[in-house]
């Protein structure tokens, strides 16, 4: 029996994995690479460019474009570099005549059916096929047959399709299947009749669908709102970040003249990899509509009077001098940069106002320690964790980019995902623990079936959505979550792991918490003067009817329609500012275009107001206010960096009574969550197409050119 076992076990043995680097020769130069490298990666390491279309670093290898073929010595035929692993002593020849001829042949076949419409193609100038055909293509075409034509598909209002240009690299198919998690695209037919599309005609719907345009190496999928507006060489590109997403993904703002033409993602491995969601990418055209471009004062009859800056600040100063500091209240908006928050804090403290962020729906968190309110295991920690418990966040709507990373972790690392809150198709398998807070108390008692899994996890991660903390019993729920974290050993300082994470949905809140401002709402207080610093998502019953309301912001939205005095501010593409994301990472937004009309950067307005009030703030330019920020919090001027902090200290939240109500999903329409996206015509089209039931209060307007 034993012998039999030994015999059988021999069959199950596999050869041990090669861990040492192996040496290959690329064009004669030796390169030491890991044994799981493909030839293409080895060539990249050697600094040799291998042309390719279908290969993409973040997608599975398909090897169907055949462009990356290279000659390998002692092999009878040329091989595709992307799908062939290296072996020791392999001699790769990328510059031989055989390779060139083979590439030329492949290019000839690709161009056989590719239309010659580069002059009218939006991809022209940044097209992979255009570039590579200039290098590897033959001078003349030898095919006299007609080119094929394919019917265009409907991919929604964001992606324009010209499917005749498609070269069947299948990047879009693999993106939807692997990253977006919606296996809806595929190929039909064979050979000349191959078509990429949905099998049954339906609209493709994903929050990350804009990334298809970046992936497509040719002009088959192009940016629909950007269509025929600019050429890449006319654009002025500004490397900035996007504060409308709470993870502040790195973006590239392309401008032509004084207008933003498009927004593209930039590479940042620890934040957004190379994806951004559709609201970040397409909501910028809201910056052209409903803008506040002059100071406005509401008259008694409800009409508005236009004021100059001097008059407006004097009116405001007069109103401030009437009220004492105790009757004042401020609300910090969602896209506020650190500079504006600090200037606001300094000014309001000078006026004697203590309650700076009086939001009813503010997060109930303590700013004492950074691990009270940040995503402590970082966004990249999702890939290290083996269990993720999401509480009260629909990740697919709250942060689609994080959702893509969670999906990647579930596929690659086998991440176990549990969800408390409203259930949805999150693009990966997950366990739904319950919809209400009773699931949390069950977990704390240990009676919930998921408790055993949580106990076994080595690096568990709890992700608390900001919507939970915005509840009226937010602090009590937070205390339960902290107790769960303590019971199941989620915080492990000895192995440098803190699994308690908060997923904010407003960068302004994080900036406020970083400088020690917490939101305190007193329902009994009747403030006489309210300063809304770009706040639009407030609850209307927070503002008493007789209060004098000042709104400083970009768009005519809820805040402006309630305000008595309106001061025009600059939006995130019109001012330089630093933003803190939910990770605690400070990143720098750059000015791309000038602000409209009289609008000014927010901290400049507050600085000017302080001078009129006779309480001059001691900074005159951006550098000086950043020194002031460094006085308050030195880590806020270290850009693109997360300052390390103690993992074990945290403020214990006050225990209270937890309402056993449903943890509801606050985002009812992903495409319209803030003032900018509510004013955006593209987002209006999207919510009409993808979310018709929830498309609310958008007044359509003829777009201007």
């Amino acid at each position, binding site marked *: 029996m034993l012998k039999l076992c030994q015999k059988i076990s021999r069959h199950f043995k596999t050869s041990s994995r090669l861990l040492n680097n192996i040496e290959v020769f690329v064009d004669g130069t030796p390169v030491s690479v890991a044994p799981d490298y493909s030839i293409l990666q080895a060539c990249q390491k050697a600094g040799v460019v291998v042309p390719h279309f279908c290969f993409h670093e973040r997608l599975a290898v398909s090897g169907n474009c055949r462009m990356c073929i290279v000659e390998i010595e002692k092999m009878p035929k040329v091989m595709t570099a992307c799908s062939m692993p290296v072996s020791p002593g392999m001699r790769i020849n990328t510059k031989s005549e055989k390779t060139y001829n083979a590439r030329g042949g492949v290019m000839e076949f690709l161009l056989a059916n590719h239309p010659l419409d580069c002059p009218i193609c939006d991809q022209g100038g940044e097209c992979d096929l255009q570039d590579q055909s200039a290098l590897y293509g033959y001078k003349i075409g030898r095919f006299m047959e007609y080119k094929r034509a394919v019917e265009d598909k409907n991919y929604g209002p964001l992606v324009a399709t010209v499917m005749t240009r498609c070269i069947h690299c299948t990047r879009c198919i693999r993106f939807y299947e692997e990253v977006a998690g919606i296996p809806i695209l595929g190929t039909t037919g064979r050979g000349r009749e191959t078509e990429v599309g949905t099998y049954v005609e339906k609209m493709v719907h994903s929050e990350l669908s804009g990334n298809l345009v970046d992936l497509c190496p040719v002009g088959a999928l192009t940016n629909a709102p950007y269509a025929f507006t600019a050429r890449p060489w006319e654009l*002025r590109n500004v490397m900035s970040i996007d504060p409308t997403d709470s993870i502040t993904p790195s973006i590239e703002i392309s401008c032509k*003249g*004084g*207008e933003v033409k498009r927004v593209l993602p930039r590479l940042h491995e620890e934040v957004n990899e190379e994806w951004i969601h559709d609201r970040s990418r397409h909501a910028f055209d809201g*910056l*052209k*509509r*409903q*803008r*506040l*471009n*002059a100071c*406005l004062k509401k008259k008694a009859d*409800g009409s*508005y009077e236009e004021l100059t800056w001097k008059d407006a600040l004097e009116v405001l100063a007069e109103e401030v001098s009437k009220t004492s500091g105790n009757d004042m209240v401020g609300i910090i908006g969602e896209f506020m940069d650190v500079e504006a928050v600090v200037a606001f804090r300094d000014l309001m403290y000078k006026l004697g106002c203590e309650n700076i962020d009086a939001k009813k729906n503010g997060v109930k968190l303590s700013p004492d320690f950074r691990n009270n309110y940040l995503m402590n295991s970082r966004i990249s920690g999702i890939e290290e964790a083996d269990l993720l418990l999401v509480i009260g966040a629909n990740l697919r709507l709250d942060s689609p980019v994080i959702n893509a990373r969670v999906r990647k972790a579930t596929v690659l690392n086998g991440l176990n995902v549990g969800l408390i809150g409203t259930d949805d198709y999150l693009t990966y398998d997950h366990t739904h623990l319950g919809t209400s807070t009773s699931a949390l108390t069950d977990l704390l008692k240990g009676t919930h079936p998921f408790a055993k899994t949580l106990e076994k996890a080595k690096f568990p991660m709890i992700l608390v959505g900001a919507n939970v903390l915005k509840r009226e019993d937010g602090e009590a729920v937070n205390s339960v979550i902290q107790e769960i974290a303590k019971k199941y050993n989620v915080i492990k300082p000895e192995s440098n792991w803190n699994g308690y994470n908060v997923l904010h949905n407003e960068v302004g809140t994080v900036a406020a918490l970083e400088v020690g401002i917490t939101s305190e709402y007193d329902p009994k207080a009747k403030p006489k003067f309210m300063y809304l610093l770009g706040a639009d998502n407030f*609850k*209307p019953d927070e503002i008493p009817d007789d209060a004098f309301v000042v709104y400083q912001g970009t*768009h*005519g939205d*809820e805040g*402006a*329609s309630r305000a008595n005095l309106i001061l025009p501010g600059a939006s995130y593409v019109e001012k330089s500012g630093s933003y803190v994301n939910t990770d605690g990472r400070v990143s720098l937004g750059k000015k791309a*275009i*000038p602000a*409209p*009309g009289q609008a000014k950067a927010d901290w400049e307005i507050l600085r000017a107001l302080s001078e009129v009030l006779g309480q001059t703030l001691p900074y005159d330019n951006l550098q000086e206010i950043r020194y002031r920020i460094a006085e308050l919090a030195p880590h806020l001027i270290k850009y693109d960096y997360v300052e390390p902090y103690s993992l074990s200290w945290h403020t214990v939240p006050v225990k209270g009574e937890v309402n056993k109500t449903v943890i509801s999903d606050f985002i009812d329409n992903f495409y319209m969550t803030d003032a900018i996206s509510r004013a955006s015509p593209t987002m209006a089209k999207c919510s009409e197409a993808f979310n018709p039931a929830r498309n*609310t*209060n958008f*007044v359509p*307007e003829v777009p*201007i*050119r």
Partner: protein
Amino acid sequence: MVGWGIDSILSGRFMKIFRMEGFIRTLERGRIVRFRNITDHVGSRGVAKCVGQDSYGNRYYEDFHGDDCNESFVCQRWVEYADRHDMWQTGRKVPAEWHAWLHRINDDVPSPDNSNYHHPIYKRKHLPNQSGLPGATVPLGDGRHEYAKQFQTYIKSRIYTSWEPQENAPKKRYD
């Protein structure tokens, strides 16, 4: 001051340089001996050949056969600026092709009679270094940069529609 002693004049080197460079320059060679580092070797080394002259009047010398060529730091190619009698000699007027020759980017002497060196007709005239002058290059973020001036024009070209307050206030979304 003058470095030409009787012996060195009699040695014949004086006359060689005199024939090539003229009397004044020969005197300068001698005078430079004591004070200038670069040409210090020249006096001791022998006769350096002037390989060419650019449009500004700078003269370029080359000497591979100096006495102490291989021993210490020696300048094998050097320039004698046309403005060498000014208070500050500057390198701002060395044209690009001579710069390349001086710094051994290129070995071909870019003089007009050198057929190896290509002088295309469409080549622009050399623009001297503009540092400290109005035409100086400024970084992208500088207010004097072309982009910053353009940016001012963008303010006018900014297209947007301003807010039109509605008489009927929008519905409260949180009710």
